């Protein structure tokens, strides 16, 4: 039950990410899967967060069709990093959440671009690239700031239903 719920969340996030128009003021679209990965890494135990990050990244890779595995690896790394960092932070604070997600998004994208560049991606490290990276970080930070609590509630509900189904057969 829990995994089906996570799967549906990833599907919805990817569908939304691929259909939303680019935001005019940042010139980029939000990275919802990365955002969910970072949020899950905040409240989930590391193992679950890693699984979610890897699955989400791999599904995004399959959709992109290039450098398959790079998103999976990057998101996995970001989940580990985020989980490690936020264990030491007070996550209920809005500003902490915002900066954690903002920095996580920026770092995740930079890692992906760096990885892609290592495998022959010829994207220029120009100002538009940085603008898009920072813009996406900003959007993810703002959205994540408010999405944290509802997502945590959904996660709790999913875990509850999962346990219920497991126990009642």
């Amino acid at each position: 039950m829990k995994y089906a719920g996570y799967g549906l969340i990833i599907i919805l996030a990817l569908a939304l990410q691929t259909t939303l128009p680019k935001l005019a003021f940042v010139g980029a679209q939000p990275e919802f899967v990365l955002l969910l990965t970072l949020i899950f890494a905040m409240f989930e135990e590391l193992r679950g967060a890693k699984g979610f990050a890897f699955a989400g990244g791999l599904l995004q890779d399959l959709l992109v069709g290039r450098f398959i595995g790079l998103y999976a690896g990057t998101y996995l790394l970001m989940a580990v990093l985020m989980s490690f960092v936020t264990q030491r932070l007070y996550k209920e604070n809005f500003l902490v959440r915002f900066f954690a997600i903002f920095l996580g998004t920026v770092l995740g994208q930079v890692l992906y671009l760096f990885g892609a560049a290592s495998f022959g991606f010829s994207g220029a490290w120009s100002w538009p690239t940085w603008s898009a990276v920072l813009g996406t970080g900003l959007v993810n930070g703002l959205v994540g700031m408010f999405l944290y609590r509802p997502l945590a509630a959904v996660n709790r509900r999913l875990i509850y239903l999962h346990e219920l189904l497991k126990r009642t057969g």
Partner: protein
Amino acid sequence: MLDRLLRWKIPLIIVLVLILVGTIHNTSVPRPDISRLEGLWRDVLSPFQWLFSRIAGFFQNQFAEINRWRGLKARNDELEARVAQLEEEVLRLRNYRRENEWLREALDFREEGNHDLLVAEVIGRSPSNWESTIIVNKGQAHGVTSGMAVVTQAGVVGTIINSSRHTSTVLLIVDAQSATGGLVQSTGDLVLVEGGQMGQRTLLAKPLSRDTVVEVGDVIVTSGLSRIYPKNLPIGEVVAVEPRQYDLSFAAIVEPFVDFTRLEYVLIVMPQEES
């Protein structure tokens, strides 16, 4: 237990990393075909994408519509201002066209009649109900003096009765004090054309001899016997002939050719010897 786990974990991570690096490397160049897994995944996702694109499209359309309305308001204001400006211009151009037509006709009239004519604009009318005069914008400064004939290309208007430096007053031929020498164009009989049909815009043509014959439809023109009007300027058309007392005489009702209610420009006939 932990040692065993760590013993397996590290090789697993290494294997995983190697697999990832391999797939990344293999898919780092654009491929003409996608794998079945990728195709399946895209097919699974497509209904959701379709749904979200519809929703996003709907909101985009709504925003676009709002923006369009905003733009329309500004555009409407701009166009309204433009329409007002153009209407004003059209009005001005219509005036110019009418003035131009009038001046062209006046020019033809001047060439036909070989008169020295001065174009004057009607700038006022008599403030009294009991006299029929107009004020024109030409006066002594332009050589206009009392007694000069005022006409249009349609016919006789009246005479100048007084003038200031820049304006003149014209006594219309329909005024009670006006009397003009005329003749019946078809017979050449002389008549005296008087104004004086109080409150009416018609003239009375009175015969000067017993043998004068006037019929409805006859055209009355100036006789040229006076020094005011040149000869053969049209005055009006006979619309009725009324017998006078004891049937000894008659008077013809003449409708002037000039529409005195719509006078905008007139021509002042300048004496040739003076011009």
